[in-house]
């Protein structure tokens, strides 16, 4: 089995601050890989570098065998992504969102519609395909984003905190789809989450990152054993400590707060 993601000595500095500090890991093809860490540990920064939207300071990255800095298009074709913040067009219908994605990825029109139907049926949104996304609940939007991310048949699916702000039922459903997809279509899944029970349940392997460094990488069972913990959450605390991280609010956080104030919710 080949490695779908290879990262060696990856570094990202913002001025004097080192957000990602010489990390190395590999993700084998077809595996579900959990990337865990407290707030501000460098999870999202790493995903951004893997997905071509942020240039690393130094280090080696291969995504599906391509370099995200110099072979952007090949890398972009290889993955689908569900961002931490929503990225749907609220004023289009679900089907239009799917269609637009397919057009951007060069999927032929007829094929686009066929795949959109299959995927929307899979996430249980086909009956609501002609509704505007602004009428969707947070959970429905997430399901739509997962379906959309898979429309161009990517080899890798990136999920940045895909279940944040969702109730347990919806979380359960979403992981069900993802698990099924990764098995059926041999899609490699790379996700971050704060919910350790989710990681414990679905991840074949986890890396724990803290202060920009990877402090442990193994199967959830081995991580628990290694730290002598009953749950992955306890193992996580054992590895990363009890201190609450005081992150400095940046521009994006301020906008998130504005958005939450207007809409009265996280999503």
């Amino acid at each position: 089995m080949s490695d779908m993601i290879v990262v060696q000595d990856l570094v990202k500095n913002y001025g004097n601050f080192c957000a990602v500090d010489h990390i190395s890991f590999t993700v084998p093809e077809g595996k579900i890989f959990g990337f865990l860490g407290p707030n501000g540990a460098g999870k999202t920064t790493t995903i951004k570098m893997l997905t071509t939207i942020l240039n690393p300071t130094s280090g080696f990255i291969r995504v599906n065998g391509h370099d995200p800095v110099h072979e952007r298009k090949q890398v972009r074709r290889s993955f689908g992504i569900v961002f931490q913040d929503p990225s749907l067009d609220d004023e289009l219908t679900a089907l239009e969102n799917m269609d637009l994605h397919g057009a951007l990825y060069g999927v032929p029109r007829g094929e686009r519609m066929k795949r959109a139907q299959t995927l929307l049926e899979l996430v249980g949104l086909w009956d609501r395909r002609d509704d505007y996304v602004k009428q969707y609940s947070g959970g429905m939007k997430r399901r739509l984003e997962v379906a959309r991310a898979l429309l161009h048949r990517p080899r890798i699916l990136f999920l940045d905190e895909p279940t944040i702000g969702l109730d347990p039922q919806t979380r359960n459903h979403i992981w069900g789809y993802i698990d099924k997809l990764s098995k059926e279509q041999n899609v490699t899944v790379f996700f971050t989450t704060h919910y350790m029970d989710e990681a414990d349940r679905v991840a074949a392997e986890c890396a724990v990152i803290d202060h920009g460094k990877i402090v442990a990488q193994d199967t959830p069972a081995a991580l628990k054993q290694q730290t002598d913990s009953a749950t992955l959450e306890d193992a996580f605390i054992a590895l990363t400590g009890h201190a609450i991280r005081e992150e400095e609010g940046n521009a994006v956080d301020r906008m998130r707060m504005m958005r939450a104030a207007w809409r009265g919710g996280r999503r």
Partner: protein
Amino acid sequence: MRAIYVLCIRQLKRYVRSPARIIGSLGQPLIFLLALGFGIGAIFKRAGGGNYIDFIAPGIIAMAIMFTAVFSGIEIIWDRQFGFLKETLVAPVSRFEIAFGRVLGGAIVAMLQGFAAFILCLVIGFRVHDWLLVPVAIIFMFLFSLLFTSIGTAIGSVLQDMQGFPLVMNFLVMPLFFFSDALFPLQDLPKFMAGALLLNPVTYGVDGIRGSFSSAFAFHVATDFGVLLVLSAILLAIGSYLFSKIQL
């Protein structure tokens, strides 16, 4: 090419689907038109300026375009974090195509908003001198829209959050609008004012639109057209470049 097309269509769909927004953003032009048009109209006429509604209508159309266009560019700040733009930034499409599609879509929407303001002006009493020249006015409106959507895109690509928005409105858009020939004629101005007006691209945009509607250009029609075309091309290039450099 397909990316440019689908992104344009997306913006047009969003525009026609929100009539509330279309009508809402006509509020400001309407106030200017009523308050200034009728409030200053009498004095303007006594001073020998002619019909003031006919004079400011093109300025008001330009105002509607400027605000819509700049806002569509500034929206990038929001859209790239919480909207669909983020999705396009990881698609296997060149950033220039995305920038171009977005600017073109935004410019068409701004032009349509300008056209809506034009209809509003007609209702208030604006008279067109020669209807055959209306297509020329529309060309000017489009170039003007393109120019300001490009400016907005350049700014929206550089700003980190919405807090810079009032700065842009009060120190760029408003001065450009007021220090132009939108509300008063070029003649008999103090020297510094005349200089400011001549350096302001809005002056040429408004003159192009006004000239087409009234069949009387203050500059030559080719001057207006040339200035707008060259500036739009330069700013489109700058806007697309800055957009292509966005990192999240």
